[in-house]
């Protein structure tokens, strides 16, 4: 759904970096360079960014069944 607050593997805080990452990648920057720039060093944290899909934009418009 939403971008995770922390990296699944190492537990480093990454949630606050997502929006900047997304904005810059959509503007055409190289994802790897953006991650270097944001200070995301380890590959466990980097894959969190590279593999994430913001699915909640679509789910938001459907009623919740619970």
């Amino acid at each position, binding site marked *: *759904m*939403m*971008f*995770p*607050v*922390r*990296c699944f593997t*190492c*537990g*480093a*805080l990454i*949630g*606050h970096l*997502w*929006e900047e990452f997304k904005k810059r990648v959509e503007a055409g920057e190289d994802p790897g360079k953006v991650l270097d720039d944001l200070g995301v060093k380890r590959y466990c944290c980097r894959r969190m960014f590279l593999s994430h899909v913001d699915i*909640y*934009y679509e*789910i*938001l*418009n*459907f009623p*919740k069944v*619970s």
Partner: protein
Amino acid sequence: MVEIRVLEKNPYVLKLHVKDIPLHVLNSIRRTILSEVPTMAVDFVVFTINSSVFYDEYIAHRLGLIPLTSEEALEKYKSPEECREAGEKGVFSEDCFVKLELEGKGREGEIVTLYSGDLKTSDPDVKPIHDKIPILALTGNQEIKLEAYARLGRGKEHAKWSPVSIATHKYVPNILIDYEKCKGETCKECIEVCPRNIFDLVDGKLIVKSEKIYECTLCRYCEEKCPVNAIRVKWIENEFILTIESTGSLSTKKILLEAVKILEEKINDFINSLKERGVLE
């Protein structure tokens, strides 16, 4: 005498080169940091309204993972063990819990994202370390109203209370080159193969870059690839590199001091119980 050299220091990362310390001592400090040093984190969440598409558990989990500033809270609030009991009984007393409130409404045709900065805290000393962590999104007539209760806890109970994301130690690499065997300029095999680029040629002589030696991962790929067996990757006894990466809830200095304090208390407890049983005089 323990000798320490600071390799890297910034608000979040501390890297130390520690000499003359046995591995088990350093490891006990490291493990104390990971599982014993207390920090603040959200533990209970009371939902009054939640008509968003996110389930209560999902939001509660996200809230729990947000690091909260805990530098002052360590002295201010009761110990994790006491507060855990109080929380399980449903007593959210002020000497244990910090209340964080979140309220928000969606707007038609628009996505409203609520951030950690929107949390209203009852104690200004305990607040999210970053204001831009997204918690949930709302649209249309969706609404959220909740109270989150944060308390002190330890990493062994749940990783959200751990003050560090990584705490590691590693050996200090010692790379020995046999210059009688090394062919220097004509070979260059190890230079090309090293994943951390720690080798270099100076006047046709193979050397290890002094500033890069700490980056060596001891993978021994150079040893394996050298056609004449001129390289030996060893490490130095009783010398280690300790790396601490804080999540931001506590400063690296505070984490280390707190860990040593807790470890000392534990050892004193052990000695006292030995004395009580007459094992020690």
